[in-house]
């Protein structure tokens, strides 16, 4: 390849020296047939000639090396070489010097070191052969080594290296921004571009404009690499005028088209608008390749030459295309990754909410469980106290009554005991009733029995009911009735409303100490009636307000309680209010008192077209008046039955005389008549017939009360219209059950 002077006296000669230095600069060799190359090293104490013969057909080599001076002389004796040799020193001085540096250090200093030298020589030989072989493989007609091939090779390697790096980065899940930036900067350097940008389509505006409401999408330059700072930046450049028109261009790009502009000024495909733009952006030549992500045009990768036109090479275009494809993969992966992240976050959030819900439910269940536990505690306490009184006091009385008249207890004491027994019994009954009631309301059994009634009268009767209690506690009961007489009539379930008010008022009394007051305030707002119950009692702590209307919940723990009650009152009240479609609120300050406010909408009566009279008679009917007439003369049994029936909420009219009874029964319209057979000397047959006839429109039930009855008598009386029998020795519970079953 080269001829070198090694030191002053050493000389390396190849055929190339001879050929290039000769006047006819190029010698074309035959394509076929063997080629011969030689290397001649001449030093004062050493000469060597290396000859290689390449056979192109077989691609094999013949290499021979000789140290014989004569052989070398023969070899060089050909006239061309000998004439040229003399000139070498002059013409190739520079190259010789170049080689000097590489070969000289490794040259042997004496002949004996021959083997080392040969190895060195062989090394030179093989590298030379390799180099000459490449152009041959490319069918390159030149025998001489081409510099651009090396460059191309280098480029290809470099391209591959860049692509590999992008690939690695993609697989490493590096930040997309980093990948793209790195890629375009390397490509810029490799292709010696002035500017390389990524023009992204449909970029949400938020990065540019901070207004997140109108997320507009624009096409803009999002990445840029520049060869130097002299080149103006076009990052975030955005032009709608020229590009938006070119929608068919986008279609072409989507199909993988690359735009190649070698010279902006001369390219006929560019519109004048685009040419202007190119000039403004200082672009002389450009190369545009689409980045297609999932069949969608994501953006363009654009190479710019800013100073001179450029002939874009096919390999460069191909490389840019490859880069675009790799970037597309990176973008796609990044998008998928982003989606995955979003979904992951969403799932995490869902899991969190679920977990919270579960936790809440668990806590609620625990609280409910605890409430039930507390409720049982409360109830057993509530039930036990009156029961203890009843058992204890009745036991005392029983004990003394069996002591044959020698009762040391005063009459007053006895009466006091009996009164306590009765009160305790009533308390128990009320408790049990309220338990039953709440389960009824919960089961939705209470349908509203809506009637029209006077609010004023209702308020009166409520206060009347609790007056005694208030007096006992020395609490002032005040009614502030702020309704005009013409608005006095209101439609609701009177019984239920009364219960609501009673609950609240008696609660107020219960929690108000001596000298305090409870105010019942009533006014109307359009179709609503508002009931406010204000007391000056102990009040309720703010943190306890939420639990107030909860079932089984008493604000005091049952072990430390000072006020009795099952804790069902307010829960029931709330349910009754809600049954009316109303609402209940409470305001309270600890130690100052509480105010309960009930809003109740005016209910619609189901049959509004009935005239008033009918409505009233309807009212009388729907109101559960369970009248019982007792016909008896025996004071003892009659008193007993009266007591028992009134305790069971029946209205009892006790008639003493048979003679006027029929007329009176007719007037009183009872549901049931109890006849005391033993104390009435009358023919039952006539009596029952008369009774049934006279009150025919009502389902009048007749019960015969007797000391004892035979089966025959039963049969006989059944035929006379007697519905059932009671024996005087029957247990009270059994008597009540019979009457209940007959009346309902």
């Amino acid at each position, binding site marked *: 390849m080269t001829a070198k002077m090694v030191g002053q006296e050493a000389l390396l000669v190849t055929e190339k020296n001879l050929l290039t230095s000769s006047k006819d600069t190029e010698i074309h060799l035959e394509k076929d047939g063997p080629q011969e190359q030689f290397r001649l090293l001449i030093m004062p104490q050493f000469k060597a000639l290396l000859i290689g013969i390449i056979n192109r057909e077989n691609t094999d080599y013949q290499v021979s090396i000789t140290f014989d001076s004569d052989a070398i002389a023969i070899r060089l004796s050909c006239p061309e070489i000998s004439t040229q040799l003399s000139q070498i020193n002059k013409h190739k001085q520079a190259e010789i010097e170049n080689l000097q540096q590489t070969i000289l250090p490794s040259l042997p200093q004496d002949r004996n070191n021959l083997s080392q030298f040969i190895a060195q020589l062989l090394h030179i030989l093989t590298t030379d052969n390799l180099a000459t072989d490449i152009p041959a493989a490319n069918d390159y007609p030149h025998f001489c080594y081409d510099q651009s091939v090396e460059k191309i090779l280098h480029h290809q390697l470099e391209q591959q290296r860049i692509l590999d790096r992008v690939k690695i980065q993609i697989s490493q899940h590096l930040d997309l921004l980093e990948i793209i930036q790195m890629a375009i900067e390397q490509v810029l350097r490799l292709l010696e571009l002035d500017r390389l940008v990524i023009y992204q389509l449909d970029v949400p505006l938020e990065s540019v404009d901070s207004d997140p409401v109108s997320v507009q999408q624009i096409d803009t330059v999002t990445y840029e690499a520049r060869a130097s700072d002299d080149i103006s930046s076009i990052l975030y450049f955005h032009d709608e005028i020229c590009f938006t028109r070119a929608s068919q261009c986008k279609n072409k790009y989507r199909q993988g088209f690359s735009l190649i502009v070698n010279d902006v000024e001369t390219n006929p495909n560019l519109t004048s608008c685009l040419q202007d733009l190119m000039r403004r952006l200082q672009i002389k030549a450009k190369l545009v390749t689409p980045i297609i992500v999932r069949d969608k045009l994501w953006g363009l990768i654009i190479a710019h030459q800013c100073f001179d036109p450029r002939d874009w090479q096919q390999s460069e275009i191909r490389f840019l295309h490859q880069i675009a494809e790799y970037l597309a993969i990176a973008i796609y992966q990044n998008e998928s990754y982003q989606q995955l992240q979003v979904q992951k976050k969403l799932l995490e959030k869902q899991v969190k909410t679920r977990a919270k819900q579960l936790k809440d439910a668990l806590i609620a269940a625990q609280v409910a469980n605890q409430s039930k536990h507390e409720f049982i505690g409360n109830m057993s306490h509530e039930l036990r106290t009156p029961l203890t009184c009843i058992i204890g006091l009745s036991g005392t009385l029983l004990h003394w009554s069996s002591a044959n008249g020698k009762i040391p207890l005063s009459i007053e004491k006895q009466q006091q005991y009996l009164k306590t027994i009765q009160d305790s019994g009533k308390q128990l009954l009320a408790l049990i009733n309220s338990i039953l009631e709440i389960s009824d309301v919960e089961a939705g059994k209470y349908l509203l029995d809506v009637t029209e009634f006077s609010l004023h009268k209702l308020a009166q009767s409520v206060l009347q009911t609790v007056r005694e209690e208030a007096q006992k506690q020395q609490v002032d009961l005040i009614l502030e009735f702020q309704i005009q007489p013409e608005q006095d009539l209101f439609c609701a379930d009177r019984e239920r409303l*009364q219960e609501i008010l009673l609950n609240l008022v*008696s609660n107020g009394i219960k929690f108000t100490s001596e000298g305090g007051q409870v105010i019942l305030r009533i006014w109307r707002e359009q179709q609503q009636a508002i009931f406010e119950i204000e007391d000056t009692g102990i009040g309720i702590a703010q943190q306890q307000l939420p639990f107030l209307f909860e079932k089984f919940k008493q604000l005091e723990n049952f072990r430390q309680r000072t006020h009795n009650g*099952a804790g069902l*009152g307010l829960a029931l009240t709330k349910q009754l209010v809600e049954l009316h479609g109303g609402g209940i609120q409470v305001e309270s300050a600890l130690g100052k008192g509480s105010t309960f406010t009930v809003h109740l909408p005016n209910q619609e009566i189901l049959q509004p077209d009935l005239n008033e009279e009918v409505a009233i008679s309807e009212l009388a009917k729907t109101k559960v008046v369970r009248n019982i007439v007792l016909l008896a003369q025996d004071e003892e049994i009659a008193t007993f039955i009266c007591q028992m029936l*009134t305790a069971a*909420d029946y*209205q009892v009219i006790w008639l003493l005389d048979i003679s006027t009874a029929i007329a*009176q029964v007719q*007037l009183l319209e009872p549901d049931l008549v109890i006849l005391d057979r033993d104390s009435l000397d009358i023919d039952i047959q006539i009596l029952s017939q008369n009774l049934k006839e006279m009150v025919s429109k009502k389902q009048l039930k007749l019960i015969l009360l007797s000391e004892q009855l035979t089966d025959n008598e039963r049969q006989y009386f059944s035929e006379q219209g007697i519905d059932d029998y009671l024996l005087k020795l029957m247990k009270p519970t059994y008597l009540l059950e019979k009457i209940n079953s007959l009346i309902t």
Partner: protein
Amino acid sequence: MTKFRKTYVLKLYVAGNTPNSVRALKTLKNILEKDFQGVYALKVIDVLKNPQLAEEDKILATPTLSKVLPPPVRKIIGDLSDREKVLIGLDLLYEEIKEREGEI
């Protein structure tokens, strides 16, 4: 907490089946059905048949309505056509009247 329907024990003294007696019973029934919120046990006594009972309770005229329970004992004499009087007698209207006086 839960109301008790107050239990009343009433006695109505009549004399036979006279129109006054019938009217008294009718009116009383009416009042008890419409205005009365408690539970009652009404004992209807014919003074002609049971004079000893009338005597015990010192009944001088018929019809007479006597409220035995809750105390105090009250007696309303007449055919009960004065509705208000009956209600006052039963301690039912007492509050209402007090209220009205306050308004005036």
